[in-house]
């Protein structure tokens, strides 16, 4: 089974465990991205995730197809949460089931790498001090106050 979607509710690891359960698969790898309490040394209290939902879900589905083509895997979950997420909250989940572990690890690693590189989702950091700024906004000041 494949699940590829953007969600606003909390990421449910147990749902993913159910989605990829398969007696032919000896290996499951999960990657969870979590909102950190700092970015490049500056204290943060959370992240707002913006997204172009329709294209993002298409791109997640495309990444799933690519991973199935590139690796010997059977099930895949690619879920990204959007909206306002406090520190410590999971923002993204990649879950893979495969016959054996090398492909499960490689596919999970590639999955999160491709999500971060290509899926139209953007982070705005809620700093502990100073105004929010978007990541990768060249015009924003990231100076600590």
């Amino acid at each position: 089974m494949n699940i590829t979607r953007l969600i606003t509710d909390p990421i449910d690891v147990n749902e993913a465990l159910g989605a990829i359960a398969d007696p032919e698969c000896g290996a499951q790898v999960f990657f969870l991205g979590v909102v950190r309490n700092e970015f490049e040394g500056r204290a943060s209290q959370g992240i707002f995730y913006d997204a172009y939902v329709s294209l993002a879900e298409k791109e997640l589905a495309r990444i799933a197809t690519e991973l199935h083509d590139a690796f010997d895997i059977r099930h895949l979950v690619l879920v990204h949460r959007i909206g306002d997420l406090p520190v410590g909250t999971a923002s993204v989940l990649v879950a893979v089931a495969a016959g054996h572990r090398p492909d499960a690890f490689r596919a999970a690693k590639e999955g999160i790498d491709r999500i971060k590189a290509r899926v139209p989702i953007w982070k705005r950091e809620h700093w502990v001090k100073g105004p929010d700024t978007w990541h990768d906004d060249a015009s924003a000041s990231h100076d600590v106050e």
Partner: protein
Amino acid sequence: MEKNITVTTLFFSFAADRMNARQIQVPLAPGSTLGQLIEEQFVARLGPESQNWLFSVNQEWASRDLPLQDGDEVAVIPPVSGG
């Protein structure tokens, strides 16, 4: 030429901040390309680095030479930062 087609352009992240809008309806002359829309309407406010951004038309990645149709949904995609 008469501007008798209309496209919707979506903005996200800091592009939305710079445009002060998430969505703008733009009247265009028929045959206008995606590149012309971006160049003529938005680059001044988005900044010169927007020349290197990606764009989509109708929820699909699009090249700048794509002619736009009435009702198209264009999106301006600044560098992504998900994860």
